[in-house]
């Protein structure tokens, strides 16, 4: 169950939070949800939904591009 929270940095502090799905920086309000791999924060409902039905399905938590990714893209790209 996701909960809405606020970035409680003081006005003189810079605390840079990023959405776990789209990666954009979050100015103030964010959604936090707990997963088996840990807590994640999101800039809104759309990103939370997509995290569930795209990211966890297609990529998986902690995904990083593998070696040789450029060749895989070159092979699949319209030329």
């Amino acid at each position, binding site marked *: 169950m996701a909960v809405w929270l606020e970035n409680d940095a003081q006005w003189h502090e810079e605390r840079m939070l990023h959405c776990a799905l789209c990666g954009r*920086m979050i100015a103030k309000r964010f959604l936090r949800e707990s997963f088996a791999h840990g807590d994640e924060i999101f800039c809104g409902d759309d990103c939370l939904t997509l995290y569930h039905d795209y990211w966890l399905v297609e990529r998986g938590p902690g995904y990083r591009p593998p070696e040789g990714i450029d060749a895989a893209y070159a092979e699949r790209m*319209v030329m």
Partner: protein
Amino acid sequence: MSDAERIEPIDPVTLSVINNAFVNVCREMGTAMMRTSYSPIFNEGLDFSCMLFNLRGDLIGQAEFCPTMLGSCQFAMKWMLDEVGLDAFGPGDVFIHNDPYRGQCHMPEHLVVKAVFHEGRPWGFVANIAHVGEIGGMAPGSFAADATEVYQEGLRLPPLKIMAGGDYVRDVWRIVLANHRTPKTTWGDYHAMIGSLNVAEERVQELLAKYGAERLAAASEQLLDYSERFMRAEIAEMPDGVYYAQDCMEDDGITRNPYWMRLRLTIRGDQAICDWTDSDEQAKGPINATFVVTAASCYSGFLHVVSDDIPINAGCYRPIQLVTRPGTLVNVKHPGPSVGGNTETHPHIQNVVLRALAGAVPERATGAEGASSCNFLFGGFHPEYGDYYTNYHIEGSGWGGTIGHDGNSVLCPNNGNCRNTPVEILETKYPFVVEEFRLRPDSAGAGRWRGGLASSRVFRVEAPEITVNALFDRTRTQGPGIFGGGSGASSGIHIQRAGDTAFRSFSEAFGTVSDSKFTRVAVSRGDRIRLDSAGGGGFGDPRERPRESIAEDVRQGLVSPDAARELYGYEEGA
């Protein structure tokens, strides 16, 4: 339920009239800006965008300005509202904001915003975002190609009030003007920006008087929803699937290593997922794109292939979702530099979006465009006028061929929509003579529909010393063609020192790390600098190009007889 939601649906004709009114308010802001600004990058280059926002910070009106600003600006606007709050806006107040780590594109882009009040309550916002040509930092013109952190790129402004109730907030102005190299120009340009807001405020007040606040707000909500439905319908027409594309920035000005951006595009029903996770880690130099630049590139890429009839507002962006990793080329993390991400990396990103979309809608595909604005910046003391000057100069490149059309020649890359500065203006204001400005033969990628041609310009230095900076790309890579089309020519920047007989790269002449990205090089009277922009990629097999089209290209000198023979299989007189 909001007031806007309680209003009855507005008929399509009235909605269309109101949408056009919003567009025209923005156009009139642009005219005010063009006529009153001081710097050529505004009054000739038109490197600015005028917009309207609702109270949530959603874009509700825009006109034909710069796609990178139009697509990204609502992120800066929403950030501003989150950080300072709606209550911070009073009548006559103007806020300013250029911070790439608060939702902005890059440091030179300054957003000014004013709330429009109706019967004592804010109704919405008028806004102008513009590329201020000099904002301090380590390089004249504030385009430091060797910057390694944002603090070297100029004065960073979080959302700040610069006008309060119509009066100057002098402390803010004094800090800004003390940190820009050409404060007189900043003074004039800021006033042009603020003046455009005043024009827009009057026009929105007229609309409020005509339609009423609730009805106008309801219309803007319905337009947002209409644009969303329209965009969803367009995406739903595309075949579901996963489409891939990639491209690279040739270097970052600090090393000679390429940096790759990679898109895994999923079309799923009426939704598009632009997943950039496989892109390279962020660069040390200033070619990184902020998240909002990447978002704007995606939006603009889609707008190139869908119906022209969609009213462009925040609604049409809703079906396009992004996935990025902070700390990569397409989503720079603090304190990485990003000035070139908005001008050079953006068109590359957009080309990647278009290349991925070619898999889904091949009939609307295009060869890549030149994708470099050939950013050339210079500054110094004018030998005649005595004043310190700086200028931000850009060149047009060739665009890609598409079905039925050759690519446009010498047009600002797809992120800018800016204009060329006339030679007469350049020579009048700055100590250069433009010896040559022409189309480059054989710079267009060959194709059934060839790419657009690039340009070549030669500046001769007419001052004892000018400090120059450059941030180009595509000097060692090329914009690829598609479906058998050839690549466009590379760009380049070269110098012929006074007394030399040939042009050389800046690396050869001055030892810069990069041929295309360097800062603070002193050139002298009599030196010649040649800027070559990049050509556009062709579409389709060149051997299928009609013979009469090739003959005409050869007759006009756009394609040489040798290239016609080699690339098109064309023999004159055969």
